[in-house]
């Protein structure tokens, strides 16, 4: 972490509610973003993640709630007095100004001297690897360059909080992957508290210190990427993050049964009778030999095998009729050796890879 980190501010959101008619865009949301943290709001469209970001930026006025940057209450402050940087989804670069005009805009508003504007703009452009681009017109830039200019404009006035609204969604996949890493490095370098909105779960897992999964205006789970993937707390998170199979679990006394098999598990078993077993396709193995004690074994019949380049996807039907997908890496000629549709297979799932969650909607 860098020295500038001590300038970053924590964000405290308390009981923020925003309704449109009788739809809750934000339903009593509370959230703490630590100083210097990279936190991602992840959710499907209409989940409220963007509304929450707009509340932070001051463009959406909530019905009630509190918002603090550091110790200062911000909820009633107009956006132009909040001093937060923001990268918009469509960049919102002013088309009637040059790159220099755009990046220097916040500095000129703050009455920075001409000379300082020039040096600080150049430094910001250097930071996003666009040194020497100051004289370009916005229309001459490629999508990736626009993205960088927007970023430079949002950091040039050294805000202590940076907000980003799906900034990479307009880029093609290769560029997006590279920008994810670059943004991550930039965050480490500048150290400002960052709130990032995306609907792309891989992006969220790649970039974030912590991820808040949002749905129906509520935060479903707030955790680090790995915990979110390995230990989802509810069915929504389990379903939204990564690929997943669900098997319903029956509970009789201390015995759990799923897919016709008595379950071995090392994870915490939630309260309640209605449980589901979540299986990640890539954690299921095709067993050839006898399994050890720590592995659950499901007998199944292959229904379909799909070739996907770097991996295969095998669909199989368990003895109780439920269907699961299995993913495996393809090396050399392993694909040719896979069982065909109709063939019997044995699927293994380590006890450590079982995830039991309460099976209810929401």
């Amino acid at each position, binding site marked *: 972490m860098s020295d500038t980190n001590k300038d970053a501010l924590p964000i405290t959101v308390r009981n923020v509610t925003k309704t449109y008619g009788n739809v809750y865009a934000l339903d009593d949301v509370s959230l703490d973003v630590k100083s210097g943290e990279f936190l991602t709001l992840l959710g499907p469209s209409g989940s409220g993640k963007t509304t929450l970001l707009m509340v932070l930026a001051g463009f959406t006025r909530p019905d009630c709630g509190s918002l603090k940057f550091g110790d200062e209450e911000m909820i009633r402050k107009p*956006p*132009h007095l909040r*001093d937060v940087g923001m990268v918009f989804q469509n960049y*919102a670069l002013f*088309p009637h100004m040059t790159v220099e005009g755009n990046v220097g*805009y916040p500095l000129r508003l703050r009455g920075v001297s001409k000379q300082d504007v020039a040096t600080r703009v150049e430094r910001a452009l250097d930071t996003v690897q666009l040194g020497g681009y100051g004289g370009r017109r916005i229309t001459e830039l490629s999508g990736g360059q626009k993205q960088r200019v927007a970023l430079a404009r949002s950091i040039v006035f050294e805000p202590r909080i940076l907000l980003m609204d799906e900034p990479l969604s307009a880029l093609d996949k290769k560029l997006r992957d590279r920008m994810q890493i670059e943004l991550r490095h930039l965050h480490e370098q500048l150290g400002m508290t960052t709130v990032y909105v995306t609907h792309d779960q891989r992006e969220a897992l790649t970039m974030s210190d912590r991820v808040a999964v949002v749905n129906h205006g509520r935060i479903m789970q707030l955790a680090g990427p790995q915990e979110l993937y390995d230990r989802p707390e509810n069915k929504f998170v389990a379903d939204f993050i990564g690929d997943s199979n669900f098997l319903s679990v029956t509970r009789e006394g201390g015995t759990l049964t799923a897919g016709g098999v008595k379950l071995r598990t090392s994870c915490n078993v939630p309260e309640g009778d209605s449980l589901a077993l979540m299986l990640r396709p890539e954690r299921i193995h095709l067993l050839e030999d006898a399994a050890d004690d720590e592995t659950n074994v499901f007998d199944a019949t292959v229904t379909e095998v799909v070739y996907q380049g770097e991996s295969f996807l095998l669909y199989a039907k368990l003895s109780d009729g439920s269907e699961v997908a299995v993913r495996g890496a393809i090396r050399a000629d392993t694909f040719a050796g896979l069982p065909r549709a109709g063939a019997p297979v044995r699927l293994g799932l380590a006890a450590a890879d079982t995830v039991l969650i309460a099976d209810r909607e929401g």
Partner: protein
Amino acid sequence: MATTDINAGGLRQDERMERLKLFGLASPALLLVLVILVIPVGWLFYVSFVGADGSFSLENYERMIERKSYARIFQTTFEVSILTTGLCILIGYPLAYFMSQLPQRLANLCLLAVLLPFWTSLLVRTYAWLVLLQKQGLVNNWAISLGLWDEPLKMVHNLNGTLIGMVHIMLPFLILPTYGAMKAIDRDYLKAASNLGASPRRAFWTVFFPLSTPGLFAGSLMVFVLCLGFFVTPAILGGGRVILVSMKIVSNIELFVNWGAASALGVVLLAMTIVVLWVASRFLNLDQMTGGGH
């Protein structure tokens, strides 16, 4: 080589046929332009160089230079056009801004209100102003009975009446392109300005206004050029006291039956209009004028 030009001749022929058909579709319009624009203007040009005795002469143009009244007419025409354009901007820009900020349904209603008079006959609207603005008209009578002023104001048959009528007629030409340009401004630009620290006033002047100027310029130019050749409204509401080029052309024909003099005036007016448009095009991106700039 042998395999590369399979069907090349036939494909080229198809291409030629397609172009020919497209040209065929455009020909009625081209013919119309030729008959009602190119030929009459050419004839006008020709007539302006024919003297009273029927031979080639520059007397129609010499008269314009010699007589002071002509210079004054051109001066009045430009003054009235500039004043009308200026007033249209003062009234039209804030209205267009207001409309652009309304929810779409209300904005459409306002647009309808702007367009409704536009669809009413020009003559009807002009005479309506005559009725409203005259000495014993509605406006004067009401104002006096309300005590706003004591003596009837002279609001018609002079410059005032001319301007009121012309501004009213011309306003939609300014509002429509301005409103169009304003609607095309992404609201995120203003959010971005605000986020970067601009107060609403600063955001307006540094972002919204510059982005709306292509529409404003296009509208202003249209109003100005239309004003240069405007006849009906200034003729009726000016009451003969405000004489524009168009009115002089009419009197040359109707009173003096001097087609040569009228044509020469027409040619000079056309030339001036072209110069105005040419100068404007030097400063404006004509692409932006049609809304293609964004």
